[in-house]
């Protein structure tokens, strides 16, 4: 079994780029943010706001405010570059199925094999790391949804 890996440095699905302050932490369209622990969300998280990300112009220090918790981050150069791979969505799913119907069962196996295809969408040499535990912010009320960090 072969899973082909394409190289698509600039993804076609979006032509939007980050603001320059963020580009320096990764590439035009991808930034890796490393956190201790993980983000745990209950319920549907589609489109929900996690927090406010700010990069200080002078010190270039990133900060992330999640609820009442402030995280201080830094830029870390990766010892080895990381390729970000993205699975291509089987967008032409309908036409695939039509093919199966037309060609009979023969193509069946082939089309299920072809479903997973990965593309290298970016190669990054840096990441944004928030290495410490969050600091509680007192006296600043942020009206953010129920996103908590563990």
């Amino acid at each position, binding site marked *: 079994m072969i899973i082909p*890996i394409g190289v698509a440095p600039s993804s076609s699905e979006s032509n939007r780029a980050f603001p320059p302050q*963020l580009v320096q932490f990764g590439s035009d369209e991808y930034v890796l943010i490393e956190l201790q622990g993980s983000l745990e969300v209950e319920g549907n998280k589609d489109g929900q706001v996690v927090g406010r990300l700010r*990069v200080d112009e002078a010190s270039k220090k990133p900060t992330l405010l999640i609820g009442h918790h402030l995280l201080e981050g830094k830029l870390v150069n990766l010892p080895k570059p990381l390729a970000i791979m993205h699975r291509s969505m089987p967008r032409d799913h309908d036409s695939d199925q039509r093919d199966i119907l037309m060609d009979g069962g023969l193509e069946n196996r082939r089309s299920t094999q072809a479903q997973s295809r990965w593309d290298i969408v970016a190669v990054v040499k840096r990441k944004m790391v928030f290495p410490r535990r969050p600091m509680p912010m007192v006296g600043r009320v942020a009206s953010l949804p129920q996103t908590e960090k563990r």
Partner: protein
Amino acid sequence: MADLSLKFSSSTALDTGSFRLLELPSDLSKAVESALLSIKGDPDEDAVLCTGDKTYTLRSIVLSNSVLVVTPSQEDDGNSSDVVIRDQIHEVLELVSSVPRLHKLDSLLRGREYEEGRDEEEDIEMADMGENRSSQHVRLSYVDARNVLQTSDSELDRYLRDRRVLDLDGELRPIVPSYLTTILELILTNLVSLSLSHDAVPADTLESALEGGHDVRRDVARQVMGWFGILANGMWKMDAQAIVREVGLGILRPHRDDPIAQDAFLARWRTAVGDTFAAHVSLALLAGNYLSSTDSTRDPPLTTLTYLPCSQLPTDPAARFGDLFRARARWRAEEIAPFLADVAVDAKERDRLLLKYTRAVPGEGGVWYSARGR
């Protein structure tokens, strides 16, 4: 800079699990922009990543931290202060350069050796036997081999060439060594009889001669020529040394258990390659394929050779030394070196292996190596 709003993607179910991080070794990070990469392996095998010419083992490194893959917002409303978490990742895939996994090919090709004449009868026979029989002899095409084997394309090509595997009518078939020797001897004699220079042979002329006079299939002849020289623009530049070596191996091969006298062997070898190429004949060409022993009780002392191919010895160093010392109790450094060439990358590594697995005894004419006692 204004605050950016960090959001989850609007289609988390679709995005989750759709990203992977692949750590690139320095030699690959440049290749990644141009090379065609693919991941190969059956569900029960460890996956490997193949570039055009190299194979890497994939290993998953679990992270205690989590890495967010963040992209610009893809909503069309143009709210540029949004950035979107597409996926949360807890592992990084690490690549480790590895040897291609080709051992499966040997068992897949078993029973499909190609030899002149035997071919057609067997096919008819197989057809008679019905499906039961043919399922054991599944035809393996080059494309099949690419799909099944965990190896890069150029490593596969090199292996097929080294193993002398023909691609005939869309099927991979190893050539029977004795038939290969026959074809090579025919090539050498035909070059002489057609008075062609071996530096520039019109491929077509040679193919016609082999086909007309000796029933060698043209596609077989062409592929054999490819193995032993360079084919370009219909002209063939023969690698005389390689052909002479292969012919020598062909003569030596039957003498696995019954030794042949060195002089007799060299004489037969020279005859087989003909006067023109006799000068290329040298035992050094066969290093790592023979074992010579001298019977000093005879007068004059008689040196005999037996066939011992390095390629069929175990690849594990301990097992390799075991086999070598079973074949012979004591070895000189220069005798054992060719048999270690493919397990040790350099002389330093070889010395390390010798130190570990053998006992060195200074004796007449240098150091002798023998097995370590248990």
